[in-house]
């Protein structure tokens, strides 16, 4: 009786197609995972890949704490099955600045935005996405596009930081 139970288990899973080998580009590097295909991207990032910067807030795509970029667009990773990112590009807060501080992160520092910090990665990912679409957003653009939730009440500084990030981008 020298069976490797773990191997057996994974073989069994594959025969029954309970997990799926998936490949995608994560923060500029090729990544493969073998997970249930319905598993939300959020849990793959956080638990399988141990990237804890993307946060769980509600699990229903309502609060935006889990916002990441999928092929350059902001999405709420708690509500998208990992199978949908196959062969696509995913960027999380850990990869936003590509090793440096992104303009949004720089602006967040200059305006001293975070309090508890928990919702901030989601807001910064949503803001980076907004600035790609609307490089110099008005207050109304911010109101319409930034719909994440913050409980500490950092919104007032966040608005200033979004405008600041737009300026930093234009200087660069």
């Amino acid at each position, binding site marked *: 009786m020298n069976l490797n139970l773990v191997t057996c288990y994974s073989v069994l899973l594959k025969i029954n197609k309970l997990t799926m080998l998936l490949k995608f580009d994560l923060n500029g590097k090729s990544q493969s995972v073998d997970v249930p295909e319905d*598993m939300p991207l959020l849990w793959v990032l956080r638990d399988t890949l141990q990237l804890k910067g993307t946060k769980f807030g509600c699990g229903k795509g309502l609060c935006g704490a889990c916002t990441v970029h999928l092929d350059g667009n902001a999405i709420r990773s708690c509500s998208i099955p990992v199978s949908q990112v196959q062969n696509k590009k995913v960027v999380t807060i850990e990869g936003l600045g590509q090793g440096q501080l992104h303009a949004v992160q720089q602006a967040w520092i200059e305006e001293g935005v975070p309090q508890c910090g928990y919702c901030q990665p989601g807001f910064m990912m949503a803001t980076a996405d907004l600035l790609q679409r609307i490089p110099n957003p008005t207050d109304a653009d911010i109101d319409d596009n930034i719909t994440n939730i913050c409980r500490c009440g950092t919104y007032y500084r966040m608005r200033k930081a979004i405008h600041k990030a737009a300026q930093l981008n234009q200087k660069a």
Partner: protein
Amino acid sequence: MWKATRRNFLIKTGAGLGLALGLGWVGKKAIRGFFVEQADKGALVQFSTDTEPQYWFEVQKDNTVLFHSPKIEMGQGVFSALAQIVAEELEISVNQIKVVHSATSHGPIDPNTTGGSDSISSTFSQLSMLAALMREMLRERAVALLEIPLSGLSAQNGHVIGQGKKLSYAQIVAQTSEWSLPATEPTLKKPEKYQVIGKPLPRVDLEAKVKAEPIFGIDATFPDMAYAVVVRSPYFGAVRGIVNAQEASKSLGVIKVVEQPDFVAVVAKSRYEALMAKEKLQIEWTSPTPLLQQKEVNEIVQIGKGDLTVVQENGDLTCLEEGEDNIKLEFHTPLGTHAQMEPNGVAAYYKDGKVVVKMSTQSVKNTRNEIAEATGIRAEDIDIHPTFMGGGFGRRLYTPHAYEAVVLSQEIGLSVHVLFEREQEFQNGYLRPPTHHKLSAKLNNGKIEAIEHQIASGDVAFGSSLVPSFAPTVLGADFGAWRGGLFHYENIQNNSVKYWRCQLPFFTSWWRGLGLMANSFAIESFIDELAKKAKQDPISFRIAHIKQDERGKRLIGVLKEVQKISGFGQKVLSEGHAMGVACATDVNTPVAQVAEVKIENGAIKVLKVYCAIDPGLVINPDGVKAQCEGAISMGLSASMFEELNIEDGKVMPNQYLQYQMAQIRDIPDIEVSILSSGDTPRGVGEPPMGPIAPAIANAVASLTSTRMTKIPFKQYQFS
């Protein structure tokens, strides 16, 4: 590495002043009076630590200092403020201090909680003294090492310097094996000499948070950790029946379905698999009593129901009983919740009779005691590692999931993480109780002759494991529920505050500011109506009723300051705009706010909020501003939008968005002006929660003919 122990360092600190201390020898009435006074001034808690071994500071080889903070960082900026206090007396730059949370196995254990706006006020003098003691010990050690008399040595920037020579703190520590305490108590700096305290330095965790580096309870891990999801009661009063775990046990990745007397959990290899398996679990729930409905909640929380305690009474109130021209108003506030962004999470690893627990908690000591009591593991074998908290607001004073994680780890022999799902945060956390207020007053020649405030509220402090179970018997009134409910208009000779304790059949408790928001809403809206009836300017009317003592003068100070920065009553506003004012004194910190509003598409739009606050000595003005902005935003959210109802025993809604909260579009410009009186710091985190709701309501009353008496304001439609 040198570890300074408490025994060395707590020589000059006083013992804790707690509620229990005086009960043996002070009569019931006296203790109530004492308690009302102390709680109102926010002076109940003094900091002291009581468990060995522990150390506060560690000098590292690179001459940085590791500071083990007994207070937990939940966004309020406590790491930064404490680091500035330490830096001031230790003569080291804030950049050279690395603040970490104190684990129970290492650093000081907070005998109190991180909450109640007292993290700075309760630690300031002790921490200053500890840092000064350490500086003096380093300086005295340098006498021998540098062969220079003490009078020729000064501590600067992490070094002891004299006669052109210098040694870093790390060099001194490296050459020292035995330490002695200074012969005399160090002299603390006078405020005018402060170089670090009072500076608007960036928060110490700023860059880490922008990079998403901090680990919160929900992020905590151990190697080879399993993930658990606990099944919690689906409605109030539910009794668990038969559990059928057949399908769930066979579900992908499941390690075990654990059935305990008080909970059922699914433990799996991944969180996702645990969540999926939980859906397959079949549990019979029954209710021995009819399911609770909101109508019953409303009937329970009413003036005249429950137990009555008189909290404040002065003078003669008979004129309130007879006069027909008396002014009366009633106010209501609904059930609310913390909705902190990080759902509670905890990682526990049990091995050989000991357990390590990593989690977000506002009360390390209490959490540890609860685990000990429930599991039989000795408290000293439970090592709590507090993590950063994704918001607290009172929610993390209740941590039953810690015990669940420990039990699960014992049960399966692996480390386990337990997560609260968002829906469970709504249903199985605890709620801010609803309140009902009746105010009545009599005016005489433009002044208030007599005034009464009756409060009916669900419990706040009573029922919490942090408060002794005999407190209701001794105190009668729940000091959390009447917080903010006393009159600070002490020039009114005849006044009374009555409190009706209305016990709900579910758990209501701590929420940022406790009763402050509800009580300030009622009182400050009412005072505005009285000013209107008296045909007086609302600020002058308020000032006329505030006593000219030290405390009163500070309240008058913030009222005048907010008038100055807002131009209230003087500035010509745009057509369709109006301003409203309100004030509060909480934890001995007075705050006044002015809200400017307009009506947009039939709804209230808050355009700008001005805030003046006097928190005494300010450690970091930018931190104070951030707390004001945060409290104003949370108070605006709660007063404009938030409301929960009980339907068939369920808290509804139980998710974000359906539970409407402020978003960026709802938050106005906020201008904060800080007055700083005195040389001791007071609280900041909660006081600005008081005036925002009535400031908005008073602005709306000024603009329209509507006096809003119910929160949330979204229920009012304007044309």
